[in-house]
């Protein structure tokens, strides 16, 4: 259930830490799992726990503590829009409202076609680029005006044949 590529990535992370501190790699291993499967299932937690020599509960504690781990499946594209104060002052809340309207979903919901999950989020650390949005935990999108949100959503829909 975990690809060889992911297992190789696990090994690279574990190698960063002292031999008796494999648990330190848990944050990265769960991120790698999420990149492969889109979310972190209990089965994945168990796999990571066995790999690192941790109790499954200790892994679950990590999954459930950090905001970015998806504890259930999400859409193919997870859109996290920052609405914290610096973004709020520069149309962050407006970007969120625009996407809700455009996608026809509320916060923490997934579109019926399974393409997009929309989530309001806390500071992404790109405040001068507001409004900012993070796609699938990895792609920071800056200065997201309504026009650019259209381009992004329409572009992804077209790529997925759902325009």
């Amino acid at each position, binding site marked *: 259930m975990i690809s060889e590529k992911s297992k190789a990535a696990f090994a690279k992370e574990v190698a960063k*830490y002292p031999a008796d501190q494999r648990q330190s790699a848990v*944050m990265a291993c769960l991120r790698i799992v999420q990149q492969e499967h889109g979310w972190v299932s209990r089965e994945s937690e168990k796999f990571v726990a066995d790999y690192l020599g941790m109790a499954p509960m200790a892994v679950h504690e990590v999954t459930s503590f950090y905001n970015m*781990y998806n504890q259930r499946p999400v859409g193919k594209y997870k859109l996290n829009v920052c609405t914290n*104060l*610096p973004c709020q002052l520069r149309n962050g809340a407006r970007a969120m409202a625009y996407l809700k309207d455009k996608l026809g979903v509320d916060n923490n919901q997934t579109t019926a076609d399974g393409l997009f999950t929309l989530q309001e989020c806390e500071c992404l650390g*790109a405040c001068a680029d507001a409004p900012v949005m993070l796609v699938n935990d990895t792609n920071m999108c800056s200065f997201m005006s309504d026009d650019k949100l259209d381009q*992004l959503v329409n572009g992804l829909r077209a790529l997925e044949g759902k325009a």
Partner: protein
Amino acid sequence: MNSESLLAQFQATGVQTCFHNRHINPQILADLNGANWRLKDYEARGGYQALRQVLGQGGAPTMTPDQVIAVVKESSLRGRGGAGFPTGLKWSFMPRQFPGPKYLVCNSDEGEPGTCKDRDIMEFNPHIVIEGMIIAAYAMGIAVGYNYIHGEIFHTYQRFEEALDEARAAGYLGDNILGSGYNFQLHAAHGFGAYICGEETGLLESLEGKKGQPRFKPPFPASFGLYGKPTTINNTETFAAVPWIIRNGGPAYVACGKPNNGGTKIYSVSGDVELPGNYEVPMGTPFARLLELAGGVRKGRQLKAVIPGGSSSPVLPADIIMDCTMDYDSIAKAGSMLGSGAVIVMDDSRCMVKSLQRLSYFYMHESCGQCTPCREGTGWLSRVVDRIETGHGKPADMELLNSVAENIQGRTICALGDAAAMPVRAMLRHFMPEFEYHVVHKTCMVPAYV
């Protein structure tokens, strides 16, 4: 076209926020253009010369660890992450003769709302952080280090990993650095969405593979840190300041700032300005000058208030901040904190109740739940500010807010409790009439908020 290339079109280029000519005597962000982040470019800018100097290459005698610490002390460099603790002093706390591993940690978990400087440093000048860390490790006799990077800036994490590979290949990292006999291994780690991990002991817990709940201090990390071993944690920008200090000396660093507030500082200016971005200017630059560099208040509006050091620092009304210079001492004297140097500017269209509503929600969301005053108190603060904003406030609510804030502040293991309480108290102190207006009229005194 695939999704990666589509999304790449929306990636910030740094042109607006970093590669502009509105810095003043920059040291860390000087001469960057987005393409010149690689090792060879950094070396062409004089990079790794400070390390060579420390290791006694190129003729000069080798500097002893004590000499390195003395230079940093002399520079009056203070921690750029928020607390402003003297860096050289912190380094001197590390036990010299400890038998066993010691660790060096860079706190790049930049999540304090308003702060976006470490991202630009690591993205566009990653080797300056690496060089600073190698020198710090040498000064404290440390053989292993980690840079813990905010989970939300994954591209920056990958960039830093690439820079580490370059530094290893060139012999700046690893065993027997530049033939000196000195060893230092440096690795990158990342968070995954928890504000609390910016707190140094929360970060250590996270680095140990646990939920990031802060530790009680003392013991301080210098005696009980990562894996229970002596550990020094500094902010990204702090490490980035070190090479310049070594090359130019402590007094030169003080001279480009002001006494007790040495050097330059990168201010992340966000909110209601024409040109939000990072501005590296000398410590002690007047706030009015910084505002001018950022293009002034947007659309020619009037300045109303500024949160000068990240969302946790107490808000200052326009008339107070306009008289301040941007350094630890001036901002502290005005009743706030320089913090991370994240300057959130608000113009006269802003309702302070609505602004506080969003901040209070943030602290409730990010409280780790360990200490009752914070776990429960941040919920109270958020709900009460929310009901005032939405027209359901009661006349006694402002007193209630102050009481809850007072009962959080100073009663929690880490500073998140204080961070949640201070903005509330400052907003009430300076903008009470707006809260009262909301309670009486069930609506906002400042209708715009656009």
